[in-house]
């Protein structure tokens, strides 16, 4: 991934599209509350997945690898039209979801980490990656394909000849997200996003976040 430009890029990643969108809205509001100039970049800004979902069902025979490539094409669009222009204007850009969501989905479906990392090499490196925590109770993706990347993939992969192991893949993605947590630092609940906003805007904020995390872990 390339280095960020003038502004700051905050990536929000998670298994559920709804959670990711909610977190992006919460973070954006927290940043606006602190008078920061922000922009957001959401999944499927290019409309590629929407177009795929509108195609006749018998044509939608896609593999996880094809879906990851499609995500990369959508992200390339978002980087060009939403993320990079906002970073050039020194804005704080909330990208929800970003690279980690696609990489962990790819890992959960058996794609290699080397391939996934290479494909997403074009994306600017985020200043901060927030990985949303999943509740302990086992969940899975609902059949609401327009809600997010995971939901869309689960819907598109379901009619394949061998079906799609929804719960198993979801659990594998959650595990991969937890592992990714170690690389980027910081797994958050939605309510912690106010602290993230603080951290992004002030150097003192970082300490506040770390203290809060420590307290919680006790």
């Amino acid at each position, binding site marked *: 991934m390339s280095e960020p430009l003038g502004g700051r890029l905050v990536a929000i990643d998670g298994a559920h599209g709804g959670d990711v969108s909610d977190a992006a809205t919460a973070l954006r509001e927290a940043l606006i509350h602190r008078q920061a100039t922000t922009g957001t970049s959401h999944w499927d800004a*290019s409309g590629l997945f929407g*177009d*795929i979902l509108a195609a006749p069902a018998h044509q939608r025979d896609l*593999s996880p690898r094809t879906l990851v490539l499609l995500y990369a*094409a959508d992200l*390339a669009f978002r980087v060009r039209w939403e993320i990079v222009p906002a970073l050039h204007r020194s804005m704080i850009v909330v990208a929800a979801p970003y690279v980690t969501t696609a990489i962990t989905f790819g890992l959960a479906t058996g794609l290699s980490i080397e391939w996934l990392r290479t*494909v997403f090499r074009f994306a600017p490196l985020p200043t901060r990656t927030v990985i949303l925590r999943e509740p302990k109770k086992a969940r899975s993706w609902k059949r609401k394909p327009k809600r997010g990347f995971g939901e869309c993939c689960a819907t598109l992969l379901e009619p*394949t*000849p061998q079906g799609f192991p929804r719960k198993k893949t979801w659990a594998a993605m959650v595990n991969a997200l937890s592992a990714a947590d170690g690389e980027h630092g910081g797994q958050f609940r939605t309510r912690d996003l106010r602290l993230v906003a603080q951290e992004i805007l002030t150097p003192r904020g970082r300490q506040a976040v770390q203290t809060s995390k420590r307290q919680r872990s006790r």
Partner: protein
Amino acid sequence: MSLKPKRSIIEQMIARRDKSRGLLIAFEGPEGSGKTTQRKLLKTWLASRDQSVVSARWASSPLVRPLIRVRKKIRALSPLEYSLLHAVDFRHRIETEILPALWAGQTVLADRYLFAALARDAARGLELDWLLQSYAPLLWPDLVLYFTMPPQVSSRRVAATRQPRFYESGQDVTGIDDPLISYRQFIDRVIGEYENLSAIFKFVTVNAEEAVYRQHQQVRTLVEQARKRPWTDYSAEAVSEWLRRDFTAYREGARV
């Protein structure tokens, strides 16, 4: 006791199918080099010899093609998006058209394959290493026929029949308003990249300036002499990924 590692069921299936599978032949070269003409002539000839043949045209996936076409029309694609969308189309065709046909024993004639994308996208300034990775895992063709011609001849032949389209003429990267002038500049880069690829991947070259009949004679001879590149050595990852997904082929293969 044998020291040979035990092969998985999928590896065994791939090795067994290699004998009966079809041949994958790629037709590569710049615009106006006569690839399509030669592909059609070869198809007719092979069909006359009772061979089951299918053609695979570039960017023709019924699912992805409309997406690309709409975005091309409004000139909305950057070189990166252009490349990634074609990678989506290519992967979709590999999994739904090319591999099922090869598995069923049909010969596949690909009118432009992976190398067209590599040459064109590299000419647009993308890294060859990244491009190869984005198209991985690769399904290697058994024979790559590269129709060579100088850039001037390609420009002349294209100009004689039609005006090149926006992306075809590389106007998105040259910034030149005149499609023909842009095409002349762009095709020079594309052919340069093709020449590099030809040296790396050892294409079989056909002189596209020769008479159509002579080229066809050469193509026939080359196809008759062509040997399969063993899937187990070259394309195992691509085939096994498809087999794991496509239960029908898996089941049929298990019966073999």
